């Protein structure tokens, strides 16, 4: 790609970017949220028409670039946002482009078999006749990836494929990707998880503000150098130092159950505390979060707030008790994509902005403006439709929406999903501040480092139950994984085998 340029109203998304992809090489693309990574890949795959620049394929310029043309050339892409058809089955989604058929008639048996084989490559045993909408986010993510693997491609682009995956799944995915690399496929890998980048990539290109600010062999760079190029400054202290003194219990949960899914979960959340919850895919940690928030009908059990029993029968009730839930799936459950930044940021707290029912639009904009600054949300204006923001910036808007409600108990499910390192540090900082103000945070994440780095205590879940409660200072990633997979250790908070994996790491 030569001199790629792309402008959206109010934003220069790409400004003269060059990118070379070679067979048998993994090329990592990194940069802050809104740096233009996804845009570059959408231009490459024919979705956006570039305003400047040229795509060369085997040295020859590509004319009439379109998604169809890109596919014909042998390009596959896993988009950052899911592009699955909810009501259709897993198998049908996998082969949507070329449903196996003879004379127009579907070959259902063959399709299902090929689907199972394809999923097996990712170690995923799913009923391929299930509608995709019934899958968990992680399963959807894997189906998206499998779909890109369905066709024999020469170039495979993965735009944050692991945002919703846990480590085991990521490892499996990497095996598959390394296999493709050795078969001469050119890979583009976009991720905010720099460990992954260094584990996989041969070459790294850094984008900042739509410009290429560095490109070279992965081995020649350190993590810090990459970050410095991305954010254009030094980042000090990744996880903020923990100096909290958790206060009295704020939220007590007794025997919370969702029949068949969640069993007798009891926990205590103290003022000024961050409680980390970890579990593998489907272990129920997200369901727990939703159930606490009154979003799961049929939930049984007792919840006490400040020692008094409360009934959280609906999200509205939970919110009125100053709970907030940052959901996992921003597109479906987090945002009104066709509304603007102001509308989304103030949605859950709209009452505060409308005494007597009339909106105080100036205050709405002021407060939104403050969040945009504080969370460094990159948007051309406060009136931009959030659907047009980059994925990471959308995630920040979700966070802003809940912070605007000034919650006492903040439940966060994968709040840093798709967020760049710089912004992650800020979010960690904010979480820390919130805790310091005496609020309580329940923090669900599939990323062990951040769980270990932020939490005061860690709950490990498996099969809908709490398996263990651990002290982050005295445990390790290995121990947590073992507890979560149910291998080996069964005891309670056993002594960690590795070194403490505390805060302060860059």
């Amino acid at each position, binding site marked *: 790609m030569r001199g790629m340029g792309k402008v959206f109203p109010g934003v220069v998304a790409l400004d003269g970017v060059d990118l070379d992809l070679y067979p048998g090489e993994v090329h990592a693309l990194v940069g802050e949220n809104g740096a233009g990574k996804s845009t570059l890949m959408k231009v490459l795959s024919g*979705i956006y028409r570039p305003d400047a620049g040229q795509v060369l394929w085997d040295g020859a310029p590509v004319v009439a670039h379109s*998604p*169809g043309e890109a*596919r014909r050339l042998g390009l596959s892409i896993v*988009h950052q946002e*899911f*592009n*699955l*058809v*909810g*009501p*259709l*089955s897993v198998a*049908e989604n996998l082969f*949507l*482009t070329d*449903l196996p*058929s003879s004379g*127009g*008639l*579907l070959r*259902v048996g063959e399709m299902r078999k090929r689907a199972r084989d394809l999923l097996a490559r990712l170690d995923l045993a799913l009923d391929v*006749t*299930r*509608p995709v*909408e*019934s899958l968990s986010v992680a399963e959807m993510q894997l189906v998206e990836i499998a779909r890109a693997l369905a066709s024999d491609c020469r170039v495979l682009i993965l735009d944050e494929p692991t945002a919703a995956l846990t480590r085991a799944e990521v490892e499996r995915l990497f095996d598959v990707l390394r296999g493709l690399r050795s078969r001469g496929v050119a890979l583009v890998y976009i991720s905010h998880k720099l460990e992954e980048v260094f584990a996989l990539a041969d070459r790294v290109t850094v984008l900042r503000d739509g410009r290429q600010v560095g490109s070279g062999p992965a081995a020649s760079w350190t993590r810090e150098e990459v970050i410095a190029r991305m954010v254009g400054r030094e980042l000090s202290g990744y996880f903020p130092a923990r100096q909290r003194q958790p206060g009295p219990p704020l939220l007590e949960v007794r025997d919370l159950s*969702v*029949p*068949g*899914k969640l069993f007798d979960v009891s926990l205590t959340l103290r003022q000024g505390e961050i409680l980390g919850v970890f579990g593998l895919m489907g272990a129920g940690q997200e*369901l727990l979060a*939703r159930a606490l928030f009154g*979003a*799961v*009908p*049929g*939930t049984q059990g007792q919840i006490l707030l400040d020692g008094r029993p409360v009934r959280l029968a609906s*999200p509205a009730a939970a919110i009125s008790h100053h709970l907030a839930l940052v959901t996992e799936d921003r597109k479906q*459950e987090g945002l009104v994509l066709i509304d603007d930044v102001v509308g989304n940021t103030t949605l859950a707290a709209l009452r505060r902005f409308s005494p007597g029912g009339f909106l105080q639009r100036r205050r709405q904009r002021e407060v939104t403006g403050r969040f945009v600054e504080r969370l460094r949300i990159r948007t051309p204006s406060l009136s931009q439709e959030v659907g047009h923001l980059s994925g990471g910036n959308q995630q920040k808007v979700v966070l802003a929406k809940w912070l605007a409600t000034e919650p006492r108990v903040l439940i966060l499910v994968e709040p840093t999903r798709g967020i760049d390192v710089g912004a992650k540090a800020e979010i960690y900082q904010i979480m820390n501040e919130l805790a310091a103000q005496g609020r309580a945070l329940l923090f669900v994440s599939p990323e062990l480092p951040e769980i270990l780095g932020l939490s005061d205590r860690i709950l490990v879940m498996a099969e809908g139950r709490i398996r263990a409660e651990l002290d982050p200072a005295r445990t390790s990633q290995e121990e947590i994984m073992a507890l979560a997979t149910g291998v080996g250790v069964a005891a309670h908070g056993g002594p960690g085998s590795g070194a403490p994996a505390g805060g302060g790491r860059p």
Partner: protein
Amino acid sequence: MTENRWLGWMQRYGMLAILVLLCLALGLMNERFFTPSNLLVVTRQATINGLLAAGMTLVILTGGIDLSVGSVLALAGAISAGTLASTGDVTLAVLAALGVGALVGLANGLLSAYPNLPPFIVTLASMAWARGLTLVYTDGRPILVREAAYRFIGGGYLGPMPMPVVILLVTYALLLVFLTRTRWGRLVYAIGGNEQACRLAGIPVNRVKTFVYTVSGLFAGLTGLVLTARLVSAQPTAGVAYELNAIAAVILGGTSLQGGRGTILGTLVGALIMGVLDNGLNLMNVSPFYQEVAKGLVILTAVLLDWALHRAGSLGLRSRAGEAAAIAPPNEEALSRRGPTP
């Protein structure tokens, strides 16, 4: 377990159960309801709505709508009868009906797909101009049909089966295969489920959309043919307001107006419920003014019952197996259970 299975069945076939219930109730209230001749009459009467609703199902599955079917029916019937009157050629007349229908449908499809105009407006416009053309063509007068071969399409029998019923069953059988077993059939669902994703997957979205409107038009033409043959005359005012009944049958049958979810057999059940209701109210000699009231209330009861069945089902299952679709409104749940998965 048996209870569980029963509930599962009810959820999947809720509207069918309601149809059966409705029939039983009518049978109890009027001994003539279950006579074979009456059942044939009901089915034949449901044919018109059933055929329009069949094409409408495809359109709605893609997330669109076709308001023009009633007018297209009239235009196709008129031109068909006109062709017959001037040429005496039955084959030509049949082709004329189908051709006119498909053509108007094609126009609807092209306009809804390529410039991506709102189908509601495009087909509302067609509803107006096709009705106008019908009036111009017929000069506002019915066109009589004399040929016995043509009349046979509406009034004849194949064995014990009235021709319209035969046509209805063949149509639904074809569509069933199309929707569940063919590539384009699945694409119809896919486009309704997530058009954007389909475009990204390189699916010929515009062609599929054009296709479904063409099919809807074709079926409207076919319906015009059957109706003209049944009435032995083409009526310039035929089919007024039929579009709403067709859409109602589709939705009663469990297809979502958002697209992506629904079944063709559901539509058949929906059309039969509406037909049975009309017939039953007539048989019981409900006064015409109260018939409208009764019809509204019965339709409401049907969807409420269906909803209650699903709810009972999901609650029952929940306490047992623990399904808990959190915040999702109960109805979405209901719909997803009738998903298109083959």
